C-alpha cells in the first residue's frame, strides 16, 4: 500500500495556504511535516483526513484509510476511560481495546471518568484511540502536546509498532519522536496566489 499525494493545494478560510505539495509514502514508513506557524500543517492534515476538500490535486488513498488526531481529543468527560475507548472501537467495527490501554499505560485509569484526568492523561487517551480505529494511515497534528518525556517515549513506541505492522504515519511535530522518518519542509510550498475562486459568502453569519 502506498500513499501518493500529487500537486495538492489547500486553503484555510478561503485563503490558499499551500500549493504544489507532492509526497509519496509506502507502508512501514513515517513522514514528519515541519514548517513555521500558520504555514498550513493542520490544513494539509485535515485535507488528508478527508475533513475538507483540496483546492486541487489528488490524494491516492481513500479517507476511510486515515485515522486523524488533532488538538482536540474528542473525549467525553462524563464517560470513563474504558467507555470512551470502547465507543471509538465499536464505531470502527472493532472490539479489542486492551492493546490500546496497554500501549499508553491506561490500564489503571480504565475505570476513571475521563473528566478527572490530567491534560497529559487525556492526551494519552486521545492517542490510544488511534490504535482502536484499526486504520492504516495515522494523520497526527502535534500529537505530543502536554505529554511528559516518558509518555512521548510510549507514543514513539506505539508509532513504531504501527509502522512495523505495515502502517503509515504523517505527523506534524516540532520535537524528535525517536522514529525513523523522512522530513518534509513545508515552507517552499507556501501559496503565492491570493485571489480565491470561491464565491461562498460567510460574512452574513
Amino acid at each position, binding site marked *: 500500500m502506498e500513499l501518493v499525494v500529487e500537486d495538492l493545494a489547500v486553503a484555510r478560510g478561503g485563503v490558499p495556504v499551500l500549493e504544489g505539495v507532492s509526497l509519496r509514502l509506502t507502508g512501514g514508513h513515517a513522514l514528519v511535516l515541519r514548517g513555521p506557524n500558520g504555514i498550513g500543517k493542520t490544513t494539509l492534515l485535515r485535507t488528508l483526513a478527508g475533513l475538507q476538500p483540496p483546492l486541487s490535486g489528488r490524494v491516492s488513498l481513500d479517507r476511510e484509510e486515515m485515522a486523524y488526531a488533532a488538538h*482536540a481529543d474528542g473525549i467525553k468527560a462524563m464517560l470513563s476511560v474504558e467507555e470512551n475507548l470502547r465507543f471509538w472501537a465499536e464505531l470502527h467495527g472493532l472490539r479489542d481495546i486492551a492493546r490500546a490501554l496497554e500501549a499508553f499505560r491506561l490500564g489503571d485509569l480504565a475505570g476513571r471518568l475521563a473528566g478527572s484526568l490530567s491534560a497529559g492523561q487525556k492526551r494519552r487517551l486521545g492517542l490510544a484511540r488511534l490504535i482502536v480505529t484499526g486504520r492504516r494511515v495515522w494523520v497526527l497534528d502535534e500529537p505530543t502536546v502536554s505529554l511528559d518525556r516518558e509518555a512521548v517515549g510510549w507514543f514513539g513506541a506505539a508509532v513504531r509498532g504501527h509502522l512495523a505492522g505495515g502502517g503509515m504515519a504523517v505527523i506534524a511535530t516540532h520535537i524528535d519522536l525517536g522514529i525513523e522518518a523522512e522530513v518534509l519542509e513545508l515552507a517552499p510550498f507556501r501559496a503565492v496566489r491570493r485571489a480565491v475562486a470561491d464565491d461562498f459568502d460567510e460574512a452574513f453569519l
Partner: protein
Amino acid sequence: MRALLLRDLRLAVRAGGGFGLGLAFFLIVVVLVPFGVGPETALLTRIAPGILWLGALLACLLSLDRILALDWEDGSLDLIATAPLPLEAAVSVKALAHWLTTGLPLVAAAPVLGLLLNLPGPGYLWLVLSLAIGTPALSVIGTFGAALTVGLKRGGLLMSLLVLPLYVPTLIFGAEVARRGAEGMDPVTPLLMLGGLTCGTIALLPFASAAVLRVNLR
C-alpha cells in the same frame, strides 16, 4: 450506529447530560398556563391541546443545541466525521437519541399534564398519538438546525430563529389532531398529514444536515 446511539443515551442520563430538562420545562410551562389565563375550566378545555403541543415544542427546542455543539467543542464531531459511519447515518442516530431522551418522555408526560388542563376524555388518545407521531419530526428538524449553527459562538438563539418557522407545519397539524380528538371530531386527515410530514423529514433532512455539517466542519 448502535455504539453512537448508546453513547449519546449514556451521556444524556449522566450528570450534566440534560435529560429531564425538557421534561421539567414542559411541566412548568403547562402548570403556569392556568395561572396566566385563570381557573376557568371551559376555557382551559378549549386551549388545552394547543398549549400542550406548544409546550412540547418549546421543551424540544430547549435541548437542541446539545445535539451537535458539545461534540463539536471537544473535537468528537471531526472524529465521527472521519469514522466509517456515513455522516447521514450519524446525524440520524443523533436525532433518534435526542427523540428518545426528549421527545419520548414528553409523549409519556402529556396525558398527566392534560389532566391539569382539563383535557376532555376522548382527547387523551389523540394527544398522545399526535405527539408520538409529531415529535420525531421536531427532533430531525432540530438536528438540521443544530447542524446549520454548529461552530457558531452562542449559536443557540440563531438556531431557535431558524428552527421555529420550520416547526410550524408540524405544530399546526399536531395541535389540530389533538383538538379534533378532544372535541370528538374526525382527526384522521390532519393525522395523515402529520404522519406524512414526519416521514418526509426523516427521509430527507438527514441528507441536508450531513451536507451542511460537511461545510461547517471545513
